[in-house]
């Protein structure tokens, strides 16, 4: 049993709500409740079962002897007050009101002869639900009191002494992937050659002509003078290809005095030595 239950609601009541910083211990006896207060009271209940439990505890009744007449009267007062104040009343409260009214009317009816009087008690189901809800309410409170991480327990976050490299899990590759990759590469290579030859030939031919214009047959031009940085890598490659092509076709002549020496270019084929 928790503290809350041991303490009688009259001697040591649990504040229903706090209004403007003041604890509201009990619903005022005369039903006048400031609207804002009633709103807070309503919010402090977790539904009609919670409200009923509160009313039962407040009157120090035993759940098992649920005095339906009194409890229903009080419950209805609440519901009516809430309705009068046009508070948005949760449908569940109205359903409970109907349940209570039904139980009350069944109790008023003459009892038909029965073997099992207990089973016929129309209160039985409501009593069962109230008891069940009370257990849940207590359990929720106990879970809340349970030590928790970040409030009662702090988990340890350890550091590894040295920086560790996470173990890398390599992706799986199927042999089929390799075969297809090869096939695709070859397929593309065929297409690549086909397309590029035409393109590159054109630009290389063009560059060959320009280089021919740049170099003379009279004196040597340094090879590096044929490359311009602003053309980027692609331009240099084209120039280089053009030079190779020119050399191959013996249209220009390259000479180098020794290893790593500067290379010079001159117009004209290989000199007949």
């Amino acid at each position: 049993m928790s503290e809350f239950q041991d303490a009688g609601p009259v001697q040591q009541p649990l504040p229903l709500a706090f209004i403007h910083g003041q604890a509201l211990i009990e619903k005022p006896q005369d039903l006048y409740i400031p609207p804002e207060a009633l709103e807070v009271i309503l919010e402090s209940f977790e539904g009609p079962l919670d409200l009923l439990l509160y009313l039962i505890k407040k009157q120090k009744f035993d759940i098992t002897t649920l005095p339906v007449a009194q409890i229903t009267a009080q419950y209805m007062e609440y519901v009516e007050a809430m309705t009068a104040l046009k508070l948005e009343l949760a449908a569940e409260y109205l359903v409970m009101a109907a349940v209570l009214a039904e139980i009350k009317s069944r109790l008023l009816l003459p009892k038909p002869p029965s073997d099992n009087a207990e089973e016929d008690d129309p209160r039985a189901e409501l009593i069962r639900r109230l008891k069940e809800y009370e257990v849940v309410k207590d359990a929720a409170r106990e879970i809340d009191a349970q030590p928790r991480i970040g409030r009662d327990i702090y988990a340890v976050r350890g550091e590894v002494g040295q920086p560790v490299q996470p173990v890398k899990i390599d992706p799986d590759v199927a042999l089929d992937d390799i075969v297809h990759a090869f096939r695709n590469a070859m397929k593309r290579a065929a297409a690549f050659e086909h397309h590029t030859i035409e393109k590159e030939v054109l630009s290389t031919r063009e560059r060959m002509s320009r280089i021919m214009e740049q170099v003379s047959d009279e004196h040597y031009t340094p090879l590096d003078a044929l490359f311009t940085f602003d053309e980027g890598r692609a331009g240099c490659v084209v120039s280089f290809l053009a030079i190779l092509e020119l050399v191959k076709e013996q249209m220009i002549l390259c000479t180098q005095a020794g290893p790593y020496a500067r290379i010079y270019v001159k117009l004209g084929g290989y000199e007949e030595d």
Partner: protein
Amino acid sequence: MKRINRAQLKQLVEATLFVADKPMSKSRLRETTLAAFAVSDKQLSSVIEELILDYQPRGIQLVEVASGYRFQSLDSLAPLLSVLWQESAPKYSRAMLETLALIAYRQPITRGEIEQVRGVAVSSNIIKTLTEREWIKTVGHKEVPGRPALYATTKAFLDYFSLKSLAELPSAEQFDVLANQDSDDTEVPSAMSDRTNDKPEPESLPTNE
């Protein structure tokens, strides 16, 4: 399989539990840092027991929770340690705690069944928050119209509340009493009477690993 002596094994288990960011079970230890070593169950258990004892008088403790062993601060120091963090631990609403309690004690349970017991609607937000915290999860669907999701608690829930199993939950007996009463009660169509025993077993049920 490499050999490892007892002192080294103890150091390795200690360091592993220390640096791991989650509690680790014996089997998880075996799968990870102990994978390369020949270690008997008896050895591993005795090393862990020894570590638990070693830390008993200290400011931190080695404890067993649902998903394994972890180091945590001594309970009594919590109020003093809380100053290390600016934010205080979150508070949970009664609605959330009651929903969580029902899922914990009555799992697997549908939202409709929770609503029946509580007498009010359960907001989607509560289910969402509990799911995001990884405290509850859907373990199946009830074979009734609409096939509502069946919720159960997770090991993370037990870990968070420092519990080894659901059996350690407080007031478990009260729920047992209720459940027994219900089973005798033939007349009342209760929220629980439609519970069946062939539901998928939630992961977080007490285990003895």
